[in-house]
């Protein structure tokens, strides 16, 4: 993906996990799904956010797993955890109650306001592809203080001017309807090409950083809307040897996700 010497042996998963982990600096609670978000949160816990508590959709708070979990409900997350809550308590009191600083989401499609589609490609009534749907994403978006989106694929079909279906609206869309969600919606989108950022309601996602070797034009060409670009586009600092060591040796030694 890039030809920088420092990152030649770094996989795409490792890169995304490291970059996402840095964004969690000083955060207290993160609502994370399995895979990259768990890796990022676990690494952040060891580096920039020692107080970080990962809350899992399944109801686990303060997990201390003996093995890297394979699902958000893996038995190893429960044994030795600080608390296991029912789903009404988890979604009602913790998430809707406003206790989550950062929610992690993925999507099949994202638009410039950070609205997400995880329902269908094509028409909802007769879809070309039926995707899994919201899960808790609608709630994570509406109730987290901010949302990070990790997208493995950065191309015009995924970064689209017009979603096929808006499963999970950001606060801009909600406000158009007269509702006032708690959070600011998507503030960071981390991709294989770089980082898009958005400060709050009324703002578009803006390119703020590219990975070494990636050009701004490359990112614009791979984005399905006319992408706003920050005055100064930073170059993402490549994963450090320390970050890579922690990720590979402590967080995912069995390489469950670091393929």
């Amino acid at each position: 993906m890039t030809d920088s010497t420092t990152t030649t042996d770094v996989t795409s998963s490792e890169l995304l996990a490291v970059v996402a982990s840095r964004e969690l600096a000083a955060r207290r609670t993160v609502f994370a799904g399995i895979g990259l978000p768990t890796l990022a949160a676990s690494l952040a816990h060891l580096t920039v956010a020692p107080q970080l508590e990962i809350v899992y959709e399944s109801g686990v708070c303060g997990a201390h797993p003996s093995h890297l979990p394979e699902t958000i409900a893996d038995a190893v997350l429960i044994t030795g955890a600080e608390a296991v809550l029912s789903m009404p308590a988890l979604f009602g009191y913790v998430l809707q109650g406003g206790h989550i600083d950062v929610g992690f989401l993925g999507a099949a499609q994202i638009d410039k306001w950070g609205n997400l589609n995880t329902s269908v490609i094509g028409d909802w009534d007769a879809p070309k592809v039926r995707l899994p749907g919201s899960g808790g994403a609608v709630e994570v978006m509406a109730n987290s203080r901010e949302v990070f989106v990790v997208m493995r694929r950065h191309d015009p079909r995924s970064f689209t001017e017009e979603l096929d279906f808006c499963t999970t609206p950001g606060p801009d869309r909600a406000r158009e309807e007269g509702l006032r969600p708690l959070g600011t919606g998507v503030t960071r989108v981390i991709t294989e090409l770089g980082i898009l950022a958005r400060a709050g309601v009324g703002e578009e996602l803006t390119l703020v950083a590219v990975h070494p070797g990636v050009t701004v034009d490359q990112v614009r060409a791979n984005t399905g809307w006319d992408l706003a670009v920050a005055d100064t586009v930073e170059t993402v600092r490549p994963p450090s040897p320390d970050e890579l060591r922690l990720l590979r040796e402590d967080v995912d030694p069995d390489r469950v996700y670091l393929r």
Partner: protein
Amino acid sequence: MTMREAVSSFVHDGDTVSLEGFTHLIPTAAGHEIIRQGRRDLTVVRMTADIVVDQMLAAGCVSRLVSSFVGNSSAGSLGELRRRVEKADPEPLVFEEYSHYGMICRYLAGAQRLPFYPLRSYGGSDLPSVNDGLRKVTSPYPGPDGEPEQVYVVPPVNPDVTIIHAQRADRSGNTQIWGLTGVQAEAVYAADKAVVVVEEIVEDEVVRSDPNRTVIPSHAVDAVVACPRGAHPSFAQGYYDRDNAFYRAWSGISKDPATLQEWLKEWVYGTADHAEYVSKLGEEFWDSLAVGEAMSLPVNYGRRLG
């Protein structure tokens, strides 16, 4: 009660059947028995429609699905579900799409006999355009800015029967679950009838030594079925681990209708009951899912002296 009797008594053609268990304690054995008994035209209510739902769809049991996540966890796709939704193949499937908390709130409303339940979701979503169940109510109290405030609501769900899997219960139905407890209590209280499938039926004294562990009291339970390993391929905390290999395999099995039907023939129609399914998997297999001990420390409930 045997699983056969429970399904025969409490699940009828055309019923609305809730099967709950979020990754943990999925009532798979109950789903298989519904398939064996050839139920038709069911409305299945399940937050995470996963392998057991794909199997029931493939067996022709289900005409309507109410769900907030239709996928094979993070392991891949549900082949039959996608064929039904994308191509109406072999027949259409009516699908009511919610988000997780929308489903939870439907159970909460059902359990509490409420006409609706409010939640802070759906503002700006396309879901209300395809789901008439998502409506709005104006709060009778002023919002933070002093102006009238609107909030989305969902309607109650009151299944004809809810079936859940649990670690243990006593004979009268006091049901104890540890680890993830999900939305099981709400799904049971929302239903007209409730069937609890357990790893083991225990002596009254076991349950009564720890009444806070009872997630569902007997007055809400209509039948208790002992069915060890009935949650496979999901897991039962402290009993057996999740069969991740089977989850990964399911995308391949379900991709081809013939392969899927072959699977059903061998593992569901071809087994008389779950005990046969369990023994067909073999001891070596179960050994691979065995878990070690991590016992909770006891607490003192206290005894009045004198």
